[in-house]
């Protein structure tokens, strides 16, 4: 049974890989980043002076599907990691590509939602809801986009045969980032969409 590479005996003072430690520190720091954006949203939640308001615009069934897609992308991501840790390069490639595709699907859903809201009269400058909603979900979307780029880059590099079982840390790191972006959405889905003013 393959162990995660990050826990192998390394010549560092903690025995842990530098890059994995870096990634977890980064994710810890990202909690502060998204925390600030979420706090701003919550602060202004029912203080918009004029509409449109969340209740007018949100399409919960649509967003639920979107949330489901992102969750499933986390499953495919971890399956990609499991594959490469067993030396299954082809399997990893399939699951990586799947994850990227699901990510793109999520982003299309976001783009669609943003356009719909815009047609209904919501922009960054309309009111507090427009400002905080678009900035929070916009930054989240930007993070997903960067994630998709990372996944596709890894996929492309793997096509050249440059990712083998010994390189699984790269996939693990990409996975950590991807799962984080997913859990931020778990929080946003609940606090923004399901708990409305």
């Amino acid at each position, binding site marked *: 049974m393959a162990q995660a590479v990050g826990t192998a005996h390394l010549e*560092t*003072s*903690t025995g*842990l890989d*530098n890059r994995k*430690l*870096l990634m977890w*520190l*980064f994710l*810890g*720091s*990202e909690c*502060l*980043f998204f925390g*600030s*954006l979420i706090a*701003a949203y919550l*602060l*202004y939640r029912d*203080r*918009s*002076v*004029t509409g449109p308001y969340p209740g007018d615009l949100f399409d919960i069934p649509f967003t639920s599907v979107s949330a489901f897609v992102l969750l499933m992308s986390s499953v495919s991501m971890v399956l990609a990691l499991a594959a490469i840790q067993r030396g299954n390069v082809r399997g990893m490639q399939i699951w990586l590509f799947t994850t990227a595709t699901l990510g793109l699907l999520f982003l299309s859903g976001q783009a669609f939602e943003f356009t719909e809201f815009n047609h209904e009269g919501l922009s*960054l*400058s309309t*009111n*507090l809801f*427009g*400002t*905080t909603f678009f*900035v929070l979900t916009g*930054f989240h979307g930007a993070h997903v986009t960067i994630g998709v780029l990372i996944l596709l*880059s890894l996929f492309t*590099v793997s*096509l*050249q*045969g*440059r990712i083998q079982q010994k390189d699984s840390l790269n996939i693990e790191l990409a996975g950590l980032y991807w799962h984080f972006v997913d859990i931020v959405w778990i929080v946003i889905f609940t606090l923004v969409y399901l708990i409305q003013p």
Partner: protein
Amino acid sequence: MATEWPQTRKSGLADALRGAREMADQHYGIWSWIATVDHKRIGIMYGVTAFIFFLTGGIEALLLRTQLIVPHAGILDADQYNRILTMHGTTMVFLVIMPLSATFFNLMIPLMIGARDVAFPRLNAFSYWVFLAGGIFLNVSFFTKNVFSGELGAPDCGWTCYSTLSSKAFSPGHGVDFWALGVQILGIASLASGFNFIVTILNMRAPGMTLFRMPLFVWMTLVTSFLLIFAMPVIAVALFELIFDRLFNANFFNPDKGGNPLLWQHMFWLFGHPEVYILILPAMGIVSEILPTFSRKPLFGYPFVVFSGIAIGFMSWGVWVHHMYTTGLGTVANSAFGISTILIGVPTGVKVLNWMATLWGGSLNLKAPMMFAVGFVAMFTIGGLSGVTHSVVPSDYQQQDTYYVVAHFHYVLFGGAIFALFAGFYYWVPKFTGKLLDDRLGQIHFWLMLIGFNLTFFPMHISGLLGMPRRISTYSEGQGWDFWNLLSTIGAFTIATSILVFIINFIYSLRRGEAAGHDPWDGRTLEWTIPSPPPHYNFEKIPVVHARDPFWHEKYTEDAEGRPIPVVAGAANGHEGEAHEDPGGHGIHMPSPSYFPLIAALGFPIMATGLIYDYALVAVGAAVLFVGIYGWALEPATEGEEA
């Protein structure tokens, strides 16, 4: 089955990269500096750049003080004053103290923990180049209006840039945009640095160096780095909110749409208070190294000093509202934060007491580093005490927005951080230049600076309590402020003179300074075991550590009364086979140089300029950033490694 790329395409690119790296791998010439990933060189670049910004900020201060020398002096008009004031504050905090701390992190941390470099050398280079880019970007703002007719384009909102002054309605020019984007760029540099040093300190210590055997400067760097990685994201969000309000008509701070300008203050100070501890903890770390060395005694209460530093780090998150007592948040909020603020004085007091106990009974060597370190303890204590008066809510009601506050923060940041940073300079820079600075000139520098500093800032306690507000470009006579302002201006020019003495000393020492040798101060820690300047690989053999103050332990044992006795020359004090010879470092592979950190760093100021002037540039900047990052990701970190 792996896809096969055409041989020619792949090897052509690889060859070009290899050629570029070979050119940069030579240890001389400007290209070797541009592509360097060596922490010592990066540290030197940080130090030189930060010192130039120190002179810039200092000249700005002299301009301000000249304007305030007498009522209605007429040297600067109100608009010019506001811009120079804003740039003075912003420069000193972000372009001087933070990068000077980074200078010492870079120069010293690997040496003190017995490592050859930091965990991520290219990320380290990236931090420097982003800092340089941000600093230049910020200062370019001066020239965006008609400088020759006295119109300055620099930001004029104060270094805290409160809303709604910062809004487009009240600050219609580009000054605030330069400020917000400039500080945003600088934040990236700090964040990268923070991550790098945490991983370095946790993962790259020499064998035997447990956390509680680390030098105290390393501990303070660790705590500071955690503060950086958690605080910078908050200001990043605040700055994005400001930028979106100004550029895209968002409503974060727009009262017309229900926004709350106070949100800016909360976000700013949520970052801002940990930030001031980011500014002071490294300085405290430096002093905690110098006092023991120049007292020939170990640091008194090492665990207490460590835990105080950690406590300060944690508690710094719980006090930010003390900057906002007068904004009408109510008695509950004010009282709660008043209590937390009073409490944060406790760990600081613990440190001061331990420093004093370190000096007590020591065999004091009053060279320049020691003078500045002791000066730090005294000046910082005064600043800390005025801080305690601020923590008391009703007395802060009187002090807020007066010169009393200006006095307080200059005592802790100048009398504190800057004095400690000069101490560190005199102490450690000889390790890298190989030459000691002249001690007599150092003493003159110290005394001139101490007198000038107190002459400048002590009167501000008085003028502040007499009601003189902050951030005013002039004042009328007859309010009782004239004499104190005159003193302050004389003091400011005295400080300037002392800096001149320092510059002369440094230049003189580079040419004619006494050779430093390995260990000019009879030091206690690992950096003194290697030559001055160090070879590029630092240590011929990675040392094995058996105790705190490992080098001292190697040089001395104790007699019956606990006094140090030199170990007989040649004896290894129980650790045979670990002598510090240095036959040349053959076969040690150091990380290869790289141009990509610089390329990536360039992306940011281009994007920022684009946001202000032409969105097309944003795409260009983003492209440059991407090229930089992809090149970085795909190039092997050390020649011969796979990506």
